[in-house]
């Protein structure tokens, strides 16, 4: 079946602009995660959704970052007033919460965000 997909694959924007990054999880996976990976670093947790609700948003760096998952499937990460320091690869992962191996997260290809 199809894996996690993310669009766009690359996004270049100017400082101060608003961006939206989309994640389409594996069908049936109720848990969804967003991570940010800066150059030379491992992925860093941003936010976790269980179904439609944000169960844990403790990783969001500030209030310019927001994410939604209105129907419990596709999620959108929104960044307002982008700053050059927001440049990174944004990864999405999904996980099933019933059946075997429920701790395995499946990652998307990422969106590379560049803020000029």
């Amino acid at each position, binding site marked *: 079946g199809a894996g996690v997909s993310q669009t766009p694959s690359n996004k270049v924007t100017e400082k101060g602009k608003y961006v939206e990054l989309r994640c389409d999880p594996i069908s049936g996976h109720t848990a969804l995660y967003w991570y940010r990976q800066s150059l030379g670093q*491992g*992925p860093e*947790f941003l936010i976790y959704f*269980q179904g439609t609700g944000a169960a*844990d948003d403790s990783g969001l760096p500030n209030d310019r970052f927001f994410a939604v998952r209105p129907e419990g499937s596709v999620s959108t990460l929104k960044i307002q007033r982008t700053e050059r320091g927001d440049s990174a690869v944004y*990864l999405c992962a999904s996980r099933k919460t019933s059946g075997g191996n429920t701790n395995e997260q499946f*990652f998307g290809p990422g969106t590379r965000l560049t803020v000029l």
Partner: protein
Amino acid sequence: AQRVTQPEKLLSVFKGAPVELKCNYSYSGSPELFWYVQYSRQRLQLLLRHISRESIKGFTADLNKGETSFHLKKPFAQEEDSAMYYCALLAYSGAGSYQLTFGKGTKLSVIP
């Protein structure tokens, strides 16, 4: 707070030589550890997890709670093992969920 340390940014070995990628962690609870791998131009994928005690692609990793380590080992490196390897710890965030905390990664380069 939990932490994962991968001391080597880059590890180069010759084909057929043994490989050991180091990972140390700090966590006050009961740890669950993973190794993720990212091959060139591919997405991050799970390689193995400590609770499975399995060998994947010839790799093994043993959790040593005394040394707080979860080193990844393979007796004979292959060229196709060249990739970025991330050690990750599943830990309670204190905010209602379990989160994966990743190390900075080690780039393994296998020299033919």
